[in-house]
């Protein structure tokens, strides 16, 4: 595993008596990672601590190995951020706003960079339009543009697809994927919309009540939280199903699109029995695949079904 870009250990953040982050141990590698949790789980507070906007009450938070509170300035020079709440100056045009941001980052040839980023996020046609006239989707894309203006190593996106229509969401996520592919930019996407992450992420951290309940490579988590469903392709599904139903290791069997699906109680027994049954019935075993758990299954199991 690569070194983690973002790492927190035992991170605690309280507001008065309310503890929002309760010994949070977050690890985020370079790549596109998802940070998922229900509303109020502590995602935005974690981002606040990572950016040095909130001072932790305990524990440690680092990005690139730099302390998030004491070395926040150095961190912010290397990352981009898109907040959940749009606070962009409505009277500015997109071009003017991004020029200001570029100058703050000390971007050389700011005008050229602004044009490039606007093109990258698909806002070239709207560069002279005041931000207050932007639609929700355009504003989110502008948020992505300002996060990318300095060509950062790592970008944190807080609810990037909030309030935008399904097509806009797909387009935005495609852009993120493209950025990662073209420039190797790392992304941490904080969201409560599971389907968004399924499309782009390779790593997932799940937060619930201020704690990381699980995190890891998406495939590994899918394996871990899979519902033990197997897909089998055989030459005669009907004959095969009648025989498989008799196995005590199998909970349920059904046919869908000519393929046999089995929900299994004892995978070890099931694995050894299937080839034997196929052979016994003289059926051709064309495919045998473990169906990995969906993000929804992972999330439901880790977050207690809430």
């Amino acid at each position: 595993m690569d070194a983690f870009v973002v790492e927190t250990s035992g991170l605690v953040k309280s507001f008065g008596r309310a503890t929002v982050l309760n010994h949070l141990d977050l690890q985020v590698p370079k790549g596109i990672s998802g940070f998922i949790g229900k509303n109020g789980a502590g995602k935005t507070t974690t981002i606040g601590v990572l950016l040095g906007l909130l001072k932790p009450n305990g524990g440690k938070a680092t990005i690139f190995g730099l302390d998030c509170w004491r070395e926040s300035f150095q961190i912010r020079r290397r990352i981009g951020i898109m907040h959940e709440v749009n606070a962009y100056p409505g009277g500015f045009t997109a071009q003017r706003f991004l020029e200001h941001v570029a100058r703050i980052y000390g971007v050389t040839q700011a005008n050229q960079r602004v044009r490039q980023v606007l093109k990258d996020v698909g806002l070239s046609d709207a560069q002279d339009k005041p931000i207050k006239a932007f639609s929700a989707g355009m504003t989110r894309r502008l948020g992505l543009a300002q996060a990318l203006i300095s060509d950062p190593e790592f970008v944190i996106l807080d609810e990037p697809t909030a309030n935008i229509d399904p097509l806009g969401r797909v387009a935005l996520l495609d852009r993120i994927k493209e950025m990662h592919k073209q420039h190797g930019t790392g992304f941490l996407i904080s969201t409560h919309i599971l389907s968004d992450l399924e499309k782009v992420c390779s790593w997932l951290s799940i937060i619930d009540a201020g704690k990381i309940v699980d995190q890891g490579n998406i495939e590994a988590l899918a394996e871990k939280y899979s519902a033990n469903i197997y897909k089998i392709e055989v030459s005669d599904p009907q004959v095969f199903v009648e025989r498989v139903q008799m196995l005590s290791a199998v909970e349920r069997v059904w046919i869908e699109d000519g393929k046999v699906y089995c929900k299994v109680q004892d995978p070890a027994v099931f694995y050894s029995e299937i080839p034997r049954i196929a052979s016994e019935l003289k059926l051709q075993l064309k495919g045998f695949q473990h169906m990995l758990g969906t993000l929804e299954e992972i999330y439901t199991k880790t977050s207690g079904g809430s």
Partner: protein
Amino acid sequence: MASFFSLLRWELEEYLSFPVLAFLIVSAIAAVLFQTNSGGHITSERSYISLFHTSGTVFLFLTFCAGVFFSRSFAGAVGKGETKLMLSYPVKRWQLFLSKFTALFPIIFVIYGAAYALLLYFNSISVFEPMFFVTLLAFLLQLMLTCGVSVAVAMVTKSEIISILASLLFLLGIDSVGGAGTYLSAQGRLKFLFSYFGDLIHPDVPPFTEFSATAGDAATAVVVPVVIFLVLFVAAFVYFTRFMEVD
């Protein structure tokens, strides 16, 4: 320092762009014209003393405008999430704080000072009249006091509307309660300064027959708002740069 000047340009463009700047200028001119038209005795005197009598509305408008602008820039920016956005960029907190102050303070002062200079024309007073600069000093002190109070209240409330109301009620309340007899009220300070410097510069035409201020009174009239400004401003600065959490 590049970031500081970038922030300064941002603040100027955002808070003092066309309609807002126009409003500021018009309000300053209106304050001067309103007072000129309402005071019957002003045109008859035709002397530096008219500067004292015509300052009341200007102090009121200045306090109101400065209170609103500082509250918008400091508390409003926190409430709207602008401060959070800015502090997510590679910006040092002191740069953001001072850029807000630097963008607003001199411009408000220059606009009101320039508008007030119209009175020199209306009253046929020389532009080099020293008492004009004494009046400007009183405006500067009032602006400092308004700035200190508004910024400090903004840091506590982090709400634009509460900050505007609280600071204006406080400042205008002092003026209303204290009248012209206290160093804390705008008219009071101007009275002490006008009396002392008027006696000194124009001994032949004393500004007040019944009242005479000493050098100590004039010094106190300057020191009190400056100290209040410094204490509140430094406290707000330290809080913003060292302790404030942006949620």
